């Protein structure tokens, strides 16, 4: 299991374009990828589901935790970190 904590800097939080990019990235891996909102203490949800990620209500400045488990968990965690830390500048 790979876990990484990330701060969301995007002005609009994790919705619209950033949410789309986030879930698209999570969807690339065989691993089970989950995410939770640490700031609001919400439970883990499937990071590949845009609808579930939207329900986390992640706003600018919130900290999320991503957990990946599976054969490509290292790569998944690393690439999701790069996406978020690069502020979704894909």
């Amino acid at each position, binding site marked *: 299991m790979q876990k990484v904590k990330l701060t969301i800097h995007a*002005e609009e939080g994790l919705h619209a374009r950033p949410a789309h990019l986030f879930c698209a990235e999570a969807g690339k891996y065989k691993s089970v990828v989950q995410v939770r909102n640490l700031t609001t203490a919400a439970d883990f949800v*499937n990071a590949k589901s845009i609808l579930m990620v939207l329900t986390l209500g992640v706003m*600018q400045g919130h900290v999320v935790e991503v957990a990946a488990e599976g054969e490509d968990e290292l790569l998944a965690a690393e690439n999701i970190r790069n996406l978020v*830390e690069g*502020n979704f500048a894909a």
Partner: protein
Amino acid sequence: MTKSTIFKGISAAPGLASGLAFLWQETDLKLPEPYVCSDPEAAWQKIHAAIDQAKQEIGQIRLKAESRLGKSEAAIFDAHLMMVEDVSLLEMVTEALKAGANPEAAWNNSIEAFAGMLEKLSDPLLSARAADVRDVGGRVLAHLLGRPLVENTIESPSIVIARDLTPSQTTLMDHSKVLAFCTSEGGPTSHTAILSKALGIPAIVAMGEAILGISNGDLLLVNSENGTLTCRPSEAQMLEFNRRQAQKSAQASSDLEMAFQPAITRDGFRVEVVANIGSAEDASLAVRYGAEGVGLFRTEFLYLNRSSMLVLNQQVENYSQVIKALQGLPLVVRTLDIGGDKQVDYLGIRKEGNPFLGWRGIRMVFERPEILAEQFRALLLAGRGTDLRIMIPMVARKEEVVRARLILDETLQTVRDEHPSYQVRLQFGIMIEVPSAALIAEHLAPLVDFFSIGTNDLTQYTLAMDRMNARIAPFATPFHPAVLRLIERTITVGHEYGKWVGMCGEFAGEPAAIPFLLGLELDEFSISPASIPLAKRIIRQLSRKDCREIARFALGLAEAGEVEAYLKSILSGMSGLKFDSSIGLVKN
């Protein structure tokens, strides 16, 4: 409906419009009577086929949106494509099918479950995503029911009457044919409201079911100043409406026409009327409204929403775009002013308990001089050969000004060494927004080329009142005599030392404040672009000589309420100038 009827709602975008009704047709998406579905696999196939058809439609909408409105407007449809086959949504649908639900109900209940969850979120931007989920859901449901979505084609310019509009509907309709929107549902943050504001057309929302009884082709008057829609107006109502509309548009267009002429008082004194901006787009807008330059360019946007400093070349590029948009007009740039209400790790800005009294603005220069040096360097490189004025925010102590000036001089020297033919008409100024700076103005004036008074902060720091706190915001007014005295002191001292003095707070664009500020001989009014035409008209109708008396009298009053009432009475007493609160007070 044969008699005239008046409907009331919430104004969501300002303006007046008259025209014929276009009643937006909805597809009937009523679910069939519940029936038992014995074959979940067949039901699943049916849903799968409907999703595929919906995906194709969304793909086409996405292409249309991209070609008509651009990439960023089209991005929402990427999210729609993702939502329509969302794993969690499909799991819920599969569960419902296994439990024996029919495909229409299984789909619709799952969509509603997610829309309901999103609606409950407190952030209005996120809760608005519920509309996207329902938009996607309805598209699939229409295919499940075998009822294709009704195409609404607006043939001639009309007032659109609808229950509410989905994101795909608002994106796809021909905006040039819409005179106004009136919706029975929706709120001030609905898609319809956001679109109307962006397009600059009037909109009234939450008008109630009754408006859906209006017939296609009915004559309508939309007045979103008071949130009313008049259906089949009487002749008297028509006349009154036309008079109001003509008056508004004539005033606005004559103001705009005159906006390109300088603002000279009746007794021949010229003042500069310039704009407050935050981007290159704002700069172009300012030029179109007759701004004679920019008196405040906020640069925080270059530093926010990032995890490291923007590289120098990109900073230079951003500033160059603004300079280019100004076509040679002078530019006053304010250096970085972010405080501990935001957390910006790479700048060392942490959340603070009292961020407006904390580590921000020029106070950062002692710990992190390199941030300011880098910004100066980018500005100097972008401003080569131009009229560039740089000012620093939040000055409270003389040492801050000395230090900033030193860094600017050093940076300029380095730039000159690197580029032997480098030239710039450079001025260095400071914001006067902390009372201590106004009170030691004679010690600061010799170090600078100009002062710019920031009334929003000056007011909150002088009165110790947070203007964001709704319970005390009404009292946190720059009309308070203490604020007026600090303004007077700043201008007087600045002039004694031969420096020009501007103002870049909202107060400078407040019509009632203009006679007072002219009387104190303020040199430069920096206001929001849209306020410029009106401010110039007011200045032209005043004489500085009269205004000196007005200012002296106002300074002698004890209470903000008295000052405001007095200055407003001056304004409404001016010949040919009526104080109109709906167009007069433009906040930036």
